[in-house]
């Protein structure tokens, strides 16, 4: 669905980090105060630009974790071992620091309550970030679209927004299903493997419900899940994916 809204040329603006929060050992959220922020839609991202003293610049994209209803913009960053920007954002950035930000960006991988549900969300690792914005948007609007989230993480310690997801899963119409690929909690009887077609067949909302499907995560996971859902007969036009490239480890 296109919008006839013109954004104007995307320009860099300077925001300020007003809060930081460690989500997991490798993942941190930064809450940004961005002057004259035009608002955003759930699923969009921002570009963040770093400039070294000699003028060298690096730009990376980070999904917005917060829903449009919140006045400040939260981004969640996974620290990649050989990353160029993420180690700086996770290790070095402090409250009060300025950051150059461009956005919001994206019109394809977005959801808003006006589009209706139900939603089948598939996230891997840091792919949960834009999906979280969608879920929180639905809650902020007091909307009753049914949401089922399948979330693949290496271990419970790697689940981003663990407490928030627990709270959200207690709400009517919101379900969260985890699969752990490396280690799982003691006594865990749930999924213990990478997402595959068999899992999607068991977990996916019924095709007849015509769910909007959003898949986000490392490229192999995102493409595998998309191909699996198409093979199961879900309409390709209702599946939107956002690839995050190679995963952290």
């Amino acid at each position: 669905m296109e919008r006839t809204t013109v954004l104007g040329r995307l320009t860099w603006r300077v925001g300020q980090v007003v809060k930081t929060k460690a989500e997991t050992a490798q993942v941190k959220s930064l809450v940004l105060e961005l002057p004259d922020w035009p608002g955003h839609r759930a699923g969009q991202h921002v570009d963040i630009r770093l400039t070294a003293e000699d003028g060298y610049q690096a730009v990376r994209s980070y999904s917005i974790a917060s829903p449009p209803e919140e006045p400040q913009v939260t981004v969640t960053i996974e620290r990649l071992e050989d990353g160029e920007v993420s180690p700086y954002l996770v290790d070095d950035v402090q409250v009060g620091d300025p950051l150059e930000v461009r956005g919001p960006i994206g019109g394809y991988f977005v959801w808003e309550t006006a589009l209706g549900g139900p939603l089948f969300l598939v996230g891997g690792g840091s792919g949960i970030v834009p999906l979280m914005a969608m879920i929180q948007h639905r809650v902020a609007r007091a909307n009753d679209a049914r949401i089922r989230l399948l979330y693949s993480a290496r271990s419970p310690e790697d689940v981003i927004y663990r407490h928030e997801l627990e709270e959200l899963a207690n709400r009517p119409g919101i379900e969260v299903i985890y699969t752990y690929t490396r280690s799982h909690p003691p006594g865990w009887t749930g999924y213990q493997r990478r997402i595959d077609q068999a899992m999607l067949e068991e977990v996916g909302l019924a095709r007849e419900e015509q769910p909007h499907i959003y898949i986000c995560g490392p490229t192999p996971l995102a493409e595998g899940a998309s191909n699996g859902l198409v093979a199961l007969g879900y309409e390709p036009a209702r599946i939107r994916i956002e690839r995050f490239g190679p995963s952290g480890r």
Partner: protein
Amino acid sequence: MNARLISRGFRGRRQEPREGANVPPGQYVVEDFPVLSAGPTPHTPLAQWTFSIDGEVDEPKRWTWEEFQALPRETITTDIHCVTHWSKLGTVWEGVSIDTLLDSVETAASYIVAYSDGGYTSNLPLEDVTDGQAWIAYAFDGEPLEPQHGGPARLLVPHLYFWKSAKWVRGLRLVDEDEPGFWEVRGYHNYGDPWKEQRYWGD
């Protein structure tokens, strides 16, 4: 427009240049080996892989993988320079010299087009790939060349920017007139001498 905002303490991936390192202008040294790709990684089985010399030659030549492995091989230690500003020093390759491949090839052509699985091409003057300046390399750092770095075999022309060293190379076509390749028609320089910083069209 705001004055440029400096990110306190940010350096990026750059390393301090080693003592005595001779690096072309605008380059910085890296220890890792960045992977750059214009398309999906091909995976041609070795049983189907061939390498050809064709085009404006009296007799085209073709080798299977086994035949290619039987050719005289050389070990090359060299610096490589990517147009995206990183340089990697002292890289070690194994492969067959283009001189070996062109041995007994008769041609009046002045240029070559290196062509690869997946459709990538790069163009070079013939005189830039002869006289010990270029190889078809199939090993890096003592190991078979990984697909993401161009394996089974790639062109290696270290005196030019590394986009000229076509990954997944399958042959060299000799041509009378220069035929700009994939990046050369998309904004990059036709020749690509890192010491003259010939990065882009018009440099």
